[in-house]
């Protein structure tokens, strides 16, 4: 550090350099001279040098520490060592016996033995660190398992409720909105005398009526829109052109127009199970099924204050088999197997 004089303002930097072994010889002499003049600035050696410290113990004591205790004899010079070793649990049974014998011969050391026994420090357990809460850390929240679970749940729900009709209209919505007398049945099951609307002859589609009154049934607000040249009593078509088959598209149903007529919409697709399901869902009593998740559905019913049932089995006619879910006025059907 050159010719800078060490004083109370700058001695710390000299001291640190000395402790790190970077202080030159002349500066070291200067530092020690300063510390001798100002002993209050001297840091205790034991705080500074913890390693390789030469502890000034008696030579006998040092030898005892380094040597095997078993080879040592208890004497007036070594009794302290053995008493401490006893307190530290370092003596074996043989050495303990020898120590007891020595203390019987030299009872004046029993007091020292007692003092060493008392020198044990006991922690005051009433002293506690009160602010543990602030020391604790929150674990990082890994979100990807939750996202994965949500995605899986959405996928399952989508699969469950996925509309099965080609038009995008699910059977339950059709069943809900159609006039009760309007039945969508396979063409082969059309009863004699029933007015039939061929699927190919008109295009109709359900649409929400934005002005509908919430207190009125939705079906009263729907209108059946039929082209002028295609009346309801259309001619039977015994040989439907399947190439031109199009899905049923009901746009509006005017309930008043349908009051006095019985209508059947003949489906060209005889295997359209979802359409068949409509009649099944509208007549629950005909199903020979059992509630497969009664505790769950009952719990959900209590929560949403609406009737919830999940049934599994075969309907009364034995033609349909699958899972039926009813939530309030809505019913869903998932076909599992159709018996021919």
């Amino acid at each position, binding site marked *: 550090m050159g010719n800078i004089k060490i004083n109370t303002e700058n001695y*710390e930097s000299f*001291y640190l350099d000395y402790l790190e072994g970077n202080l030159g010889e002349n500066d070291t002499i200067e530092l020690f001279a300063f510390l001798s003049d100002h002993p*209050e*600035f001297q*840091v*205790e050696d*034991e*705080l*500074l040098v*913890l*390693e390789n*410290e030469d*502890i000034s*113990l008696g030579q006998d*004591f*040092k030898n005892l*520490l*380094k040597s095997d205790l078993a080879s040592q004899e208890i004497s007036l010079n070594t009794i*302290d*060592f053995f008493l*401490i070793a006893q*307190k*530290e649990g370092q003596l074996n049974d043989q050495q303990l016996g020898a120590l007891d014998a020595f203390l019987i011969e030299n009872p004046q050391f029993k*007091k*020292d033995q007692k*003092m*060493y026994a*008392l*020198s*044990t*420090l*006991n*922690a*005051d*357990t009433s*002293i*506690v*660190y009160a*602010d*543990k809460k*602030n*020391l*604790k*850390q*929150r*674990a*990082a929240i890994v979100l990807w398992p939750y996202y994965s679970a949500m995605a899986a749940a959405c996928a399952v729900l989508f699969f469950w409720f996925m509309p099965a009709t080609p038009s995008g209209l699910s059977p339950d919505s059709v069943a809900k909105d159609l006039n009760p007398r309007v039945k969508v049945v396979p063409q082969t099951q059309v009863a004699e005398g029933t007015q039939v609307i061929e699927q190919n002859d008109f295009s109709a589609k359900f649409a929400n009526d934005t002005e509908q009154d919430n207190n009125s049934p939705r079906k009263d607000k729907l209108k059946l829109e039929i082209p002028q040249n295609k009346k309801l009593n259309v001619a039977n078509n015994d040989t439907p052109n399947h190439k031109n088959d199009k899905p049923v598209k009901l746009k509006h149903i005017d309930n008043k127009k349908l009051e006095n007529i019985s209508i059947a919409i003949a489906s060209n697709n005889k295997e359209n199970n979802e359409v068949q399901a409509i009649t099944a869902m509208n007549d629950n009593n005909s199903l020979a099924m059992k509630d497969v998740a009664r505790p769950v559905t009952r719990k959900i019913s209590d929560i949403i204050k609406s009737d919830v049932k999940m049934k599994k089995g075969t309907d009364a006619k034995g033609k349909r088999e699958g899972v039926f879910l009813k939530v309030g006025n809505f019913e869903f059907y998932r076909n599992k197997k159709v018996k021919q």
Partner: protein
Amino acid sequence: MTAKEYNSAVDDFSDNIFRFALKHLKNEMSAKDIVQETFAKVWVKHEDVSFEKVKSYLFTTAYNAIIDFVKKEKRSYDMPAEDASMSTQPETNFDVKEIINEALETLPEIQKTVVLLRDYEGYSYEEIGKICKLKEAQVKVYIFRARQALKGYLKNIELIV
């Protein structure tokens, strides 16, 4: 070590670290600072420290923090005043536990440290050596010297009484 294990270590060892620091620094606020600093450092390294070794790691960190703190305080010559409860005169207090605590204050820092680790925490000489970066023989010497000093202090008090 997971966050859960770290929090468990806080519950298990923060009191011990606090008492250890308080015995050295004799100042509650400083001891709290040491505890906070210790656990903050351990949290930074928690992924590298196994739960089985966290106690030793905590005491090592706390010991180093105490040494740094004492050095800093000594240099700045601004040691806080001792708590009144810790500065009572030995002649007026004959409770053995109190006398031992007073005797402890007369020991050099390193002797105090090894004795505290030995008596409070039950560490072996080897474990104390690892915490304080000492050889096992050195730990043994410090403990033996500390025991002699404590015994001497007790003996003197008894003579006074």
